[in-house]
């Protein structure tokens, strides 16, 4: 187990190093430097040079790469070109919206999908099962940002239960803050819940074909008892993997959903920064998201191997 974790850790580090190289050098290809963008076309050469020196743009690219990655390791993401404030602070502020939003959506989709999947599996082939499966087909096909618009039309404009956008802020109290994250989280959770319901159902049906289930039935347990006591725990393993993978989809999905609801999260930050040529912010946010995806994949792999020893040997 230790060896498995160490091998995975090595490949995680390698992925992060290569990914940071790609992010940095792809974005640094951009023609025109931020200093001349900030000062406009009438800038004097010496002011330009002074600003370039201040922003650290006058050293070779590889040195800036080392400075950037080294800084990130110690929590220093550099200084925003546009706002002249530390990027780490900007990200930290925004993270307090994006992260709770993703977690909220994850909780919602899990709470919906697991019982519904279990229910559909226990009534396999019935009318109810077909209806659930039909709904999941629809849920997968609906773009979450359109669903978000529909939610705004119904609950914000027509019924007036929620505000159509913006964020109340955590200072306004947890309830007000969660209320402004409610519609975005529902919109984000819907397609994931549809996928998870299908995974839950088919995983349960797979397990129900196993010999030990037949044994449990043969010794006289009812279908319901077998489902809850024997099948559920085994079926949950692939479901947990998908939940882990969905977290990275949710983080990416949050970028778009934040735009629908005008939430000042990481997504808004990244689009603003692109428009303002604030490349260091773009680089840092992209790298942070890649980091989150890689770490979660790693944790899921390890958890999976911990639960199922056979996987510790297999390559992939």
């Amino acid at each position, binding site marked *: 187990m230790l060896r498995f974790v160490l091998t995975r850790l090595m490949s995680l580090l390698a992925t992060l190093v290569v990914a940071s190289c790609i992010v940095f050098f792809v974005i640094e290809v951009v023609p025109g430097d931020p200093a001349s963008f900030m000062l406009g076309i009438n800038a004097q050469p010496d002011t330009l040079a002074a600003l370039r020196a201040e922003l650290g743009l006058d050293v070779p690219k590889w040195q800036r790469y080392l400075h950037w990655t080294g800084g990130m390791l110690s929590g220093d993401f550099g200084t925003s070109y546009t706002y002249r404030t530390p990027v780490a602070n900007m990200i930290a502020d925004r993270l307090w919206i994006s992260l709770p939003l993703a977690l909220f959506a994850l909780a919602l989709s899990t709470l919906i999908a697991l019982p519904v999947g279990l229910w559909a599996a226990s009534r*396999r082939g019935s009318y109810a099962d077909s209806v659930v499966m039909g709904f999941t087909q629809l849920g997968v*096909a609906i*773009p979450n*940002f359109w669903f978000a618009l529909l939610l705004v039309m119904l609950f914000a*404009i027509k019924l007036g239960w929620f505000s159509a956008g913006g964020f109340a802020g955590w200072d306004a109290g947890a309830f007000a803050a969660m209320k402004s994250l409610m519609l975005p989280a529902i919109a984000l959770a819907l397609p994931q819940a549809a996928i998870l319901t299908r995974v839950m159902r088919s995983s349960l049906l797979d397990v129900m074909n196993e010999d030990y289930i037949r044994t449990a039935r043969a010794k006289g347990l009812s279908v319901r008892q077998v489902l809850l006591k024997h099948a559920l725990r085994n079926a949950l393993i692939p479901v947990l993997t998908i939940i882990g993978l969905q977290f990275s989809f949710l983080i*990416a999905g949050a970028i778009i959903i934040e735009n629908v609801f005008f939430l000042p999260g990481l997504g808004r930050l990244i689009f603003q920064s692109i428009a303002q040529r604030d490349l260091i912010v773009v680089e840092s946010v992209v790298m942070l998201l890649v980091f989150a995806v890689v770490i979660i994949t790693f944790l899921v792999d390890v958890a999976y191997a911990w639960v199922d020893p056979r996987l510790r040997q297999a390559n992939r």
Partner: protein
Amino acid sequence: MSWRSIIPGAILVFTVMLAALGSLFWTPYDVADLDIRNKMQTSSIEHWLGTDHFGRDIFSMLMVGARTSIAVALVAVGIGMGVGVPLGLFAAARAHGWIDELIMRGNDLVFAFPALLIAIMITAVFGPSALNAIIAIGIFNIPVFARLSRGAALSLWTREFILAAKVAGKGAFRISFEHVLPNISNLLIVQGTIQFSLGILAEAGLSYVGLGAQPPVPSWGRMLAESQTLITLAPHLALYPGLAIVFTVLGLNLLGDGLRDWLDPRLRRER
């Protein structure tokens, strides 16, 4: 699910394809025609689905938007297959060698970047365009096809008919393309359909946040983005482009599911 879902799936996909192709020759109105006097109308005999805030005909825009979506998603799937499948076949032919290892690690690397992040990076460098959306979704598709074809090819390489081909003196390259590829083509068709539908969703999302096709080219995602500011005045503007996306994606998913059950009878279990 059974193979029968091919029928509704094919009907939906065929309708959208027909609208997209038809828009090359005829649309009820020219989508470049602004008619401010008749803006934000609801459905009528003249404008079947009404008009937008510039007085453009929604139905015509949806037809042209279908073309944009389908073109972007189709080319992106083409890139994914064109690069991913040869990589996967090559990795399988050299299974567990260093080339295989390199290809699979490269795959893991790309998986760390959700399509949206790739698009954001490309946009930060080259600016937003439909082409950049194609590249972003295409890159995202490569590891999907590489992984699928490697996995399927690996199990084929242990079969007798491959051994016979080896004995007959065929090299790894010829075996991969003459024997392995035809045997995994069913899988590729099914996955291609699914990636196509994901591509439509991704294109809609990218053009919604302004990273996809640029004005004046109509796209479903941007129609939704534009409708958002008018949502209290003309809610119908937000309705039709979304329905178009749902119909297309639903059709492709039903088609993909049906094809899978039809092409691979082993999966045709009572589920």
